[in-house]
């Protein structure tokens, strides 16, 4: 399963890239507690508390860091049920601001932590059609 979100952010790519790669800055907007070595193959651990008071640990490894352009990391959490998912953030300058594309891929399709990529894509393409029929 994949999640893809595109956003226009009224700030420079330099500022947005720093917000993702400076540990002091990450902690400010992500909240929670963060330990990170910002380097390719560097590891990070991030824990925040959910609205219901549950501790939510996340961890991963940076796969690619391209200044002001791209951040790729692996991503594991309770939500991924032990699967190593992949988070890719790409930044591009657009009209004086930043176009940010966030892609979280390789997420499990269900709480059991199994991935059924083909089935998932098929499902998503059909949901609108099926849900619309009486």
């Amino acid at each position, binding site marked *: *399963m994949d999640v893809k979100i595109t956003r226009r952010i009224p700030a420079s790519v330099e500022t947005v890239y720093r917000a993702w790669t400076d540990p002091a*800055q990450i902690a400010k907007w992500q909240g929670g507690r963060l330990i990170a070595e910002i380097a390719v193959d560097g590891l990070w651990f991030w824990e925040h508390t959910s609205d219901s008071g549950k501790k939510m640990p996340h961890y991963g490894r940076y796969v690619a860091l391209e200044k002001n352009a791209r951040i790729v990391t692996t991503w594991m959490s309770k939500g991924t049920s032990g699967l190593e998912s992949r988070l890719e953030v790409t930044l591009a300058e657009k009209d004086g601001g930043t176009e940010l594309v966030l892609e979280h891929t390789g997420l499990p399709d269900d709480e059991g932590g199994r991935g059924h990529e083909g089935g998932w894509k098929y499902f998503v393409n059909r949901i609108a059609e099926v849900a619309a029929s009486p």
Partner: protein
Amino acid sequence: MLNEAFSALSDPTRRAIVERLARGPRRVTELAEPFEMSLAAVSKHIQVLERAGLVKRTREGREHVLTLDARPMREVARYASKFEKFWNERLDRLEAFVIEVENQKEKK
């Protein structure tokens, strides 16, 4: 239930069956027509879909009529929206943060 639904749909024949049922209920014989396999083989695929909760069977006289059940699909959609919600909230915070950073810079 979700796991079963996904493994049921890992097979191309079963996906084709679901696709046809998405357009409306079909009789078993009618459903089997376009497939180059025996009625028994198609029936086996239908049984897998029934066990996964994707297909419901009703009887009209001697004929069995199959209807698609969209509920497992909606569950999947809800699961996906959890991650989308998570990232949309995070990106709201990121956006507020970077705007603040740039405002501070301008003041200096």
